């Protein structure tokens, strides 16, 4: 059954049959001058069903609901025109006449019968979509009540039609005799119509141009609608079908009343149309701005976006954004729209930026709507000639700091009103938030990047240091490194050399951070491989310097101290390339000495001076002697008073605790340093190698 109803062809066929029956009955009634009530009613029913079928077909084939307001109005006027056209043509061709004075009027000629049938057909075919189009307008802002009203309207129209058919009374709002029934219902219908006629909120959202145009057109349309019923339908439709006559009449009432209301509303909206348009575009542009800047984190792109969008919204002739200089006083132009290159070049210096300073002072927007010669800020016209009016809005960040000013100018004076100021302020506020965010984000990325770099450097450093200290029966070795926060370039290593020799290396790369750590890695690699061929400290250092001089930056150098100890023979040879002296505690004289043979740092010079100045020194040691290798992080450790820890203090501690094991000595030194620092941070990494001859 539903399939039947959804097949349009079937429905059209069915509808045509119904209409044909109705038309044939009319002709029969005319020629025979006889009326058979049951068939009469059947004819009415047929027409009703025809109308319903048509409505259904219309819904299936054309979706009028999806049409926009503008499209609906256009189609409405078009259909109205078509209606008039067809009626006029038929009128001319068929020249109908109807008997006045009774209801319904009867056709006087056969062509009048034809006429009334065709007019009824046309009425159904065109008034239905016209009704649906008005329904679109009513449903623009749909509420629950809208559905209720429309349903009431349709039901009461049906009731009125039925009542009219049964009572054969004229629906002319005269409440006497039989007419009391259908006219009361008609009154109800009119009340519904009155209510729905207030549903014209579609008018509010038209553009100003549309409001004016539609108002002017509506004057003609209202007139055309009013005249329509009298002209086309009043006699012809009831002559054929009372039910359809009632429907057409009611739809006509709806069209008239709704059109009059709409026309009136359009008129009322005209004075505020311009401002309304502007407000709508302001809202839209605020959305645009929010959307655009919330996805932009690049500072330079943000400032461009701000000036571009401001120009678009406020319709300024020129717009620019002034921001505070980072290090100096005064403002610079961060971005601009429609400023000539000359104007940008000739931007006033900070001392001359009187207007901007003033605005930053008062922290409020300023509109200057005319700039006569004696105006205190007339100087801006010297800089930019075409300023008729100018507005400047300060950008004030969340913490109250003023970051800059957003300017807009117009060529004519009195170009800005309070609305413009409000708009610009809103824009400036949005802009400031976005700019703040962009800055914070950048700083946070920066910070993260730095911290990551430090982490890597420290990681590298850790890996470079030996994980164990060598142990043998001749010497006691302990190592200690305390890293500063900013990674330094300290490094030490033990090298196994042939003939029971042990190599000690301690070094310090100048500079900090990842580059220091990487240079250290390189140095370690070089030394480790060179030590396979050279066991003599001076030679090793000379070769190391040769290689490293090529790869180190000019500004970078490494101080190193290299020692080779013959444990069995108790002989220590060492060379000092620019490093801290070697602390040697002599158990015999119970004194700590600082040995500082000459030698320049690695990487300072290609080799001639390096080789010439480097001296290798030999120390013969006895049991109980102690060697301390250290870096300047120790001697330069500062306490809160600014005092340096110094070599002497170290000498003192070593001498005092020389009899202890190196493990104990290490702990004592740590404790002493920490208590000396008393909470202060180390400026540089601190490294200690303790070697005691057993």
């Amino acid at each position, binding site marked *: 059954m539903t399939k039947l109803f959804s097949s349009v062809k079937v429905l059209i066929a069915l509808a045509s049959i119904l209409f044909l029956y109705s038309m044939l009955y009319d002709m029969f009634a005319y020629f025979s001058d006889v009326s058979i009530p049951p068939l009469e009613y059947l004819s009415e029913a047929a027409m009703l069903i025809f109308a319903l079928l048509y409505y259904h077909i219309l819904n299936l084939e054309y979706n009028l609901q999806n049409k926009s307001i503008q499209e609906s109005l256009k189609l409405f006027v078009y259909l109205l025109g078509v209606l008039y056209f067809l009626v006029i043509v038929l009128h001319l061709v068929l020249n109908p006449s109807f008997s006045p004075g009774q209801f319904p009027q009867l056709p006087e000629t056969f062509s009048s019968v034809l006429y009334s049938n065709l007019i009824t057909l046309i009425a159904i075919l065109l008034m239905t979509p016209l009704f649906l189009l008005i329904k679109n307008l009513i449903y623009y802002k749909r509420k629950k009540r809208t559905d209720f009203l429309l349903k009431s309207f349709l039901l009461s129209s049906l009731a009125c039609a039925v009542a009219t058919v049964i009572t054969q009374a004229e629906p002319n709002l005269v409440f006497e005799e039989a007419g009391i029934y259908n006219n009361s219902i008609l009154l109800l219908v009119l009340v519904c119509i009155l209510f729905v006629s207030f549903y014209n909120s579609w008018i509010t959202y038209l553009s100003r141009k549309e409001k004016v145009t539609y108002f002017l057109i509506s004057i003609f349309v209202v007139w055309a609608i009013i005249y329509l019923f009298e002209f086309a339908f009043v006699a012809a439709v009831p002559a054929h079908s009372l039910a359809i006559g009632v429907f057409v009449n009611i739809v006509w009432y709806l069209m008239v009343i709704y059109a009059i209301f709409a026309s009136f509303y359009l008129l009322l909206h005209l004075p505020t149309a311009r401002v309304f348009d502007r407000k709508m575009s302001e809202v839209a542009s605020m959305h645009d701005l929010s959307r655009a800047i919330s996805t932009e984190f690049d500072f330079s792109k943000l400032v461009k976006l701000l000036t571009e969008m401001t120009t678009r919204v406020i319709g300024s002739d020129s717009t620019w954004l002034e921001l505070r200089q980072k290090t100096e006083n005064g403002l610079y132009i961060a971005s601009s729209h429609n400023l000539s290159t000359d104007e940008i070049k000739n931007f006033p210096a900070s001392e001359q930026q009187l207007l901007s300073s003033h605005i930053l002072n008062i922290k409020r927007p300023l509109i200057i709507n005319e700039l006569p010669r004696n105006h205190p800020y007339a100087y801006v016209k010297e800089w930019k000639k075409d300023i008729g009016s100018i507005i400047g809005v300060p950008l004030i960040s969340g913490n109250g700091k003023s970051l800059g000013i957003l300017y807009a100018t117009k060529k004519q004076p009195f170009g800005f009103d309070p609305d413009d100021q409000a708009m610009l302020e809103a824009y400036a506020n949005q802009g400031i938030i976005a700019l703040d965010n962009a800055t914070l984000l950048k700083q946070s990325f920066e910070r993260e990047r730095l911290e990551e770099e430090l982490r890597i450097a420290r990681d590298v450093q850790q890996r470079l240091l030996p994980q164990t200290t060598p142990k043998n029966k001749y010497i006691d070795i302990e190592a200690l490194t305390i890293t500063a926060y900013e990674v330094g370039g300290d490094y030490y290593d033990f090298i196994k050399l042939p003939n029971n020799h042990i190599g000690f290396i301690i070094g310090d790369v*100048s500079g900090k951070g990842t580059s220091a750590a990487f240079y250290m890695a390189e140095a370690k690699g070089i030394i480790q491989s060179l030590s396979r061929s050279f066991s003599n400290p001076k030679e090793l250092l000379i070769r190391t310097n040769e290689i490293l001089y090529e790869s180190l930056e*000019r500004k*970078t150098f490494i101080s190193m101290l290299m020692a080779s100890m013959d444990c069995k023979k108790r002989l220590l040879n060492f060379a000092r390339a620019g490093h801290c002296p070697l602390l040697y505690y002599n158990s015999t004289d119970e004194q700590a000495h600082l040995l500082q043979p000459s030698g320049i740092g690695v990487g300072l010079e290609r080799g001639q001076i390096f080789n010439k100045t480097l001296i290798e020194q030999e120390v013969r040691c006895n049991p109980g002697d102690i060697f301390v290798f250290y870096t300047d992080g120790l001697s330069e450790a500062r306490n809160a008073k600014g005092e340096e820890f110094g070599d002497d203090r170290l000498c003192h501690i070593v001498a005092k605790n020389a009899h202890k094991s190196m493990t104990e000595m290490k702990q004592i030194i740590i404790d002493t340093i920490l208590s000396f620092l008393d909470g202060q941070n180390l400026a540089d990494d601190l490294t200690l190698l303790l070697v005691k001859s057993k």
Partner: protein
Amino acid sequence: MENFEVIREDRKDISILRLKGFLDAHTAPQFEQAIQDLMGEKRFKIIVSMSSLNYISSAGLGVFMGFIEEIRENDGDIKLSNMSDKVFKVFDLLGFPALYQIYREETEAEAKYNQK
């Protein structure tokens, strides 16, 4: 951040840079800029006077190393003078006396330039 200042005095074709305060990684760029300015003006006869210098770190020492080659290629030099004992110790440890001419007084350094 510690305070640091470079005061420049030009005497004919010699420029004296007097360092004041703490020269470390933070303040080294100022010193660098001063030397770069001199080089930009083709003034290659430089004396760095350190009587008011309280502290110098490896970063500070690196500044000298960064420019000395080019300055010497241009027939100039950086002569050092007026070091306090503490500051001299730092230079001495690294071996700078073998690489640079160090004088007690500015005048001695000037005289050395004028000798040529």
